[in-house]
């Protein structure tokens, strides 16, 4: 088991290397001089420019900058922000760091039970009205982009009915709409997965046996059939969480939430590349960790994966 995990961690190395090289290229080889941007009005001040260049390490030759960059990243130091002069990147990040994972976790906690219940209901009433209705909602939930759904929900709930705040962050009421909107595509995805698994399981002999014993429909579905869909469902929770995490960028933009994703977008427009790149690195690390956890879960559940046989 340990060998499996170590193997997976080693397998992440090329991903992280690709991210590091790409972020270095993005931050250092771009046209335009970041020092000139920082100085703006004082661009004639040669002394100040030289001092900033030294402070940011931009006066060294590129290969040396690259080595220093890798060393800094390995020690968790992302350098200084271009937009907030003299301020270390991590200080710009630290207030936003937990918001995106928190949003994604809250949405996952909402999407899992709702999606699973909808999927079970659809499977239990296959091809009848409930099934069709749930499928129509699923198609909409999966096809419509978050921000299109958000437009209508915000208009209806916040503007017309005045029930919840339109945007912002900090209070529980402000968090409701973002979490719900973030959860919708995932809930639809989970529901579709659950429906598929359920339809498969309900063909199995033990379900027929349970019915033959005279158990009620509810007991057959929840105690016998649904339990057997839990394992594939839990192992796909990691992939779902990854999708949620990247969707936080959109939700944070819609609702003006000061999370990592919005910070990255704002930083690009402000040409604050060190901050944008630090966020990209963090996202890549988050995703790599999630994949690692999912793979480990798979391996725990299914020995064939662990022993390297084709899954």
């Amino acid at each position, binding site marked *: 088991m340990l060998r499996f995990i170590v193997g997976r961690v080693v397998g*992440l190395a*090329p*991903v992280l290397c*690709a*991210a590091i090289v*790409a*972020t270095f*290229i*993005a*931050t250092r080889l*771009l046209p335009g001089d970041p020092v000139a941007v920082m100085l703006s009005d004082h661009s004639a001040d040669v002394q100040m420019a030289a001092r900033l260049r030294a402070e940011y390490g931009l006066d060294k030759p590129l290969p040396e900058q690259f080595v220093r960059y890798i060393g800094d990243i390995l020690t968790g130091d992302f350098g200084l922000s271009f937009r907030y002069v003299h301020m270390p990147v991590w200080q710009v990040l630290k207030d936003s760091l937990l918001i995106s994972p928190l949003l994604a976790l809250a949405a996952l906690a909402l999407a899992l039970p709702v999606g699973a219940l909808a999927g079970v209901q659809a499977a239990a009433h296959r091809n009848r009205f409930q099934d069709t209705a749930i499928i129509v909602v699923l*198609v*909409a939930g*999966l*096809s*419509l*982009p*978050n*921000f*299109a*759904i*958000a*437009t*209508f929900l*915000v*208009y209806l709930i916040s*503007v017309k009915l005045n029930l919840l705040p*339109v945007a912002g962050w900090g209070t529980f009421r402000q968090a409701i709409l973002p979490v719900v909107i973030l959860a919708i595509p995932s809930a639809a995805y989970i529901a579709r997965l659950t429906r*598929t698994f359920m339809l498969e399981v309900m063909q199995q002999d033990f379900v027929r046996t349970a019915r033959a014993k005279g158990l009620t429909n509810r007991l057959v579905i929840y105690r016998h059939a649904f339990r057997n869909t839990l394992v594939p469902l839990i192992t796909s929770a990691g992939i779902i969480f*990854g*999708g949620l*995490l*990247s*969707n936080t*960028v*959109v939700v944070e*933009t*819609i609702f003006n939430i000061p999370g990592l*994703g919005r910070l*990255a*977008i704002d930083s*690009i*427009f402000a040409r604050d*590349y060190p901050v*944008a*790149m630090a*966020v*990209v690195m963090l*996202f*890549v690390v988050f*995703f*790599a960790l999630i*994949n690692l956890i999912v793979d480990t879960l798979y391996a725990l559940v299914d020995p064939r994966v662990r022993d390297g046989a084709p899954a």
Partner: protein
Amino acid sequence: MTAIDVSVAPPPSRPRFWRVFLRQRSAVIGGAIVLIVAIVALLSPWLAPHPYDATDLVNVWAPPDSVNWLGTDKLGRDILSRLIVGARTSLVVALSVLAITFLFGVTLGMVAGYFGGRVEAAIMRTADVTLAFPEVVFAILIAAMLGPGVSTIIIALALVWWPGVARLARSLVIVQKEELYVDAAILAGASPWHILRVHLLPNIVAPLIVRASVGVGFIIMAEATLSFLGLGVQEPTPSWGGMIRDGLPALRTDPMLACAGSAVLGVTIIGFNLLGDGLRDALDPRLHRS
């Protein structure tokens, strides 16, 4: 990763294709939506009642009337005209991404599947590394390098989508290359390149078309998302995602822009998805809904 069902049915005859396709009500609805969007996109310069970039600063955020059927935006531009021209933007980006993705994905996947060994390992490892980046993060990375813009989203989306296509093409070729006709072609002295292009490609084209038709809806959605974030299509070129971005802050006072943009975008994506599912069932009955 889910296993891909690689059993390939022979391409259905034409009458059977239409019979299966037309029997699905949702596919016909999807097809109609796609047809309308395509015609609007194609004829947009003539259909748009006003120039899409004509500003009118005394007439900003105008409510719908007989001149501006859907009202105007923050610069007094006609919303309906911008929606119509936005259809063209969406389709042009989606088709560009699709073309690039398939050119690289199919070529690399077929080469990997046919030659195997180190070539295959190199291509598929690269694909795995690429897949580790989520598309929004990819777009942020590329936007930081190239600056926001249409080329940024096309490159970002093509980079995100080619590994999936390459995997599909590879698995299809691995199955097909065991067939007798490939041995026959090798014996006849055909070069590997010739075999890939003339013998293998026609035999894997049906599942690839299915994949493409299912993908268009997702690409349109991804383009709209990136334009919504401001990383994609830039002003004054209209895009549905960008229009919703402009409209959201004004939702309380002038909901028309955001709502009309969201509705058009949503209906278009659903249309493409319904059409894609219909094509999948009609072209390849064995690649069933998962």
